[in-house]
């Protein structure tokens, strides 16, 4: 659960760095006995396209892992591999430590909810939800008793999801929100130990999506299920996941807590995917002088964290989030003159598009109750302690070496 409070010293296998995505065997073996779901080197090709490339990850029992990535990244295919409806070309799927190779989907004890709901159109909502219960030998000796148990289970989960009043209707008569909850109810009713949710909020209207984003984590935590949740919405990912696995073009680029991903992204691309408005990326060339390493922005000298001295002489990109930038006075040290091109008032914040003297576009955001320049000339101040530095060519983030306590990269766990 992402409780907003920074988890002190949390280190687990596969946190926050590219290398650990495929980290050493021994560490994985250790966690195998604890992990509810383990994927090792899953690869899947369609024709000449490699849709999944050596994907490995673990999900501890009762935890929620979010699979995040842009469309086409392979997230849905991965879920289907775990469910067993699609076969991987290479790699293993382990549930409770047991290799699932050759085990049919109906025997894996999984609940699954789909992006476009996948409700059975010729059955009522009640019958849809009851489907997983028919295959299990329920309690009760007689058919009538078994039927009653089924009815009870369906009504219980329907009440939980607030769709108990539409159970007799057929899917065609339900609204998108009700369809989504019916789909979820069907996945939950048999109380599966492993739940796969494929972007269930995608086709639901904004207001309901927000409501579910608040309700779902609680619902899932109460059930104690292990969950793999797929989404393209970074806010959903941060709200729902204990850990997030970022999947791009079939490869896991980073696995970590929401904090890791947002504050310590492994690459430029991940930094851009998380955050709205997206992070500003400015090409810089760090240099060094008597006072230490620095970068030049619009002719002004901005000192760099000494731990990033290794970047001097390399072509880099500086990443600064819009909410970190602020407007300041011309007299402040390092104040950059900019022109405000357009202002977008959103509800809780205001976003400005500004251009520097040399025409670089920068997005700045601030809470709505703070005032700022609506147009014309202004000055921008860049807080270097919140800036990230990336290698320009590869896009990888440059990590501070032996950083001082309090800098974004160290946690109580110490060096990686």
């Amino acid at each position, binding site marked *: 659960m992402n409780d907003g409070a920074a988890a002190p010293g949390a280190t687990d296998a596969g946190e926050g760095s590219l290398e650990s995505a495929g980290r050493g065997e021994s560490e994985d073996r250790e966690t195998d006995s604890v992990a509810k779901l383990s994927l090792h080197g899953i690869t899947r090709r369609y024709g000449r396209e490699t849709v999944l490339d050596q994907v490995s990850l673990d999900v501890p029992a009762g935890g929620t892992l979010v699979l995040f990535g842009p469309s086409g990244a392979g997230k849905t295919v991965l879920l*289907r591999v775990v469910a067993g409806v699609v076969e991987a070309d290479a790699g293993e799927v382990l549930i409770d430590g047991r290799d699932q190779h050759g085990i049919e989907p109906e025997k894996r004890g999984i609940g699954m909810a789909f992006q476009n709901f*996948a409700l059975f159109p010729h059955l009522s909502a009640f019958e849809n939800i009851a489907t997983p219960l*028919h295959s299990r030998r329920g309690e009760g000796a007689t058919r009538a008793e078994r039927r009653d148990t089924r009815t009870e289970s369906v009504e219980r989960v329907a009440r939980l999801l607030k769709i108990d009043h539409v159970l007799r209707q057929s899917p065609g008569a339900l609204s998108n929100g009700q369809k989504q909850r019916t789909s979820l109810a069907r996945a939950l009713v048999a109380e599966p130990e492993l739940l796969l949710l494929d972007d269930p909020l995608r086709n639901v209207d904004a207001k309901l999506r927000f409501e579910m984003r608040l309700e779902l984590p609680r619902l899932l935590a109460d059930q104690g299920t292990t969950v793999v949740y797929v989404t393209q919405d970074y806010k959903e990912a941060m709200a729902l996941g204990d850990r997030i696995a970022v999947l791009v073009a079939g490869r896991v680029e980073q696995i970590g807590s929401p904090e890791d991903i947002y504050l310590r992204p492994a690459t430029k691309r991940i930094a851009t995917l998380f955050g709205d408005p997206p992070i500003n990326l400015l090409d810089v060339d760090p240099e060094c002088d008597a006072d230490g390493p620095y970068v030049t922005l619009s002719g002004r000298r901005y000192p760099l964290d000494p731990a990033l001295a290794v970047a001097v002489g390399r072509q880099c990109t500086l990443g600064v989030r819009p909410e970190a930038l602020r407007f300041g006075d011309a007299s402040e040290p390092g104040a950059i003159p900019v022109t405000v091109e357009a202002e977008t008032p959103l509800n809780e914040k205001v976003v400005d598009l500004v251009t520097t003297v040399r025409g670089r576009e920068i997005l700045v955001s601030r809470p709505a109750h703070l005032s700022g320049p609506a147009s014309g000339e202004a000055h921008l101040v860049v807080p270097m302690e919140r800036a990230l530095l990336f290698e320009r060519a590869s896009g990888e983030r440059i990590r501070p070496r032996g950083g001082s306590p309090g800098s974004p990269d160290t946690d109580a766990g110490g060096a990686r």
Partner: protein
Amino acid sequence: MRRSPIERALRGVALTVVVVFFMFPILWIVLMSFQTNETILRMPPSLDFTPTLANYKALITGKLVSNAGTLDIAFMGNLWNSVLLSVSSVALALILGVPAAYAFARHKFRGSEDIAFTLLSFKFAPPLLVLLPLTLYFQKIGLANTYVGLIWVYQLICLPLILWIVRGYFEDISPDIEYAHRVSGHSWWSTFRKIAIPLARPGIAAAALLAFIFAWNNFVFALVLASADKQPVTVGALAFVTASGIQYGQIAAAIVLSIAPTLALALVAQRYLVEGLSLGAVKG
């Protein structure tokens, strides 16, 4: 759209002309079936006549009383053959074709498209092309003039239809729905029975109807491969062309009885036919 009265009148006229053009022969034949031979051959033809049921009676009782004597007509036997052959052929085609269509739709194995197309191409081939070899084979293996042999050959007509139409319907079912059923704890066979088939039912019904109509109307296979006792109505109608003259009245009555079942089925299942013909192409 607002149309001027002139446009509407012209439209009405055009429609009437087209309808008359297509429906006239059928209308004429229905009239003929209620007339005696003499009335039919009267020149000029007139609509003023006393209707008679003699033709129908003759067909049903199997005895034609005419000037030349009493003739035995096997028409009812032919009608029964038509029913037997068509129904059995379609039934067999469904049993073979529906699972095959599912396989083609869901399992894209290497060469599946080629095999499917080859099966469809059987419909393109002119029947006469295969008839001579078929006749020889059938005689050799003793299938000539048997119901089994005919039903088997009729698969050439029915199976491709079932395959292609029903495959389209299976393809239109989102795979996710089937995955959902599998993951809920059911085997692929249960999913096929409880999900795939019910959802493809309109397509299956349409394909079955079309296959029935084509099988019923088939002439050439039955003509060559069956002899008198196994012939369906399409061939049986030829019997009315006798040495002593053409019994137009009976032919007309025979035709009316022949087309009645398929016409009735088509009218009743009109909706399904149009759906099936568009191969479920429009996605909702």
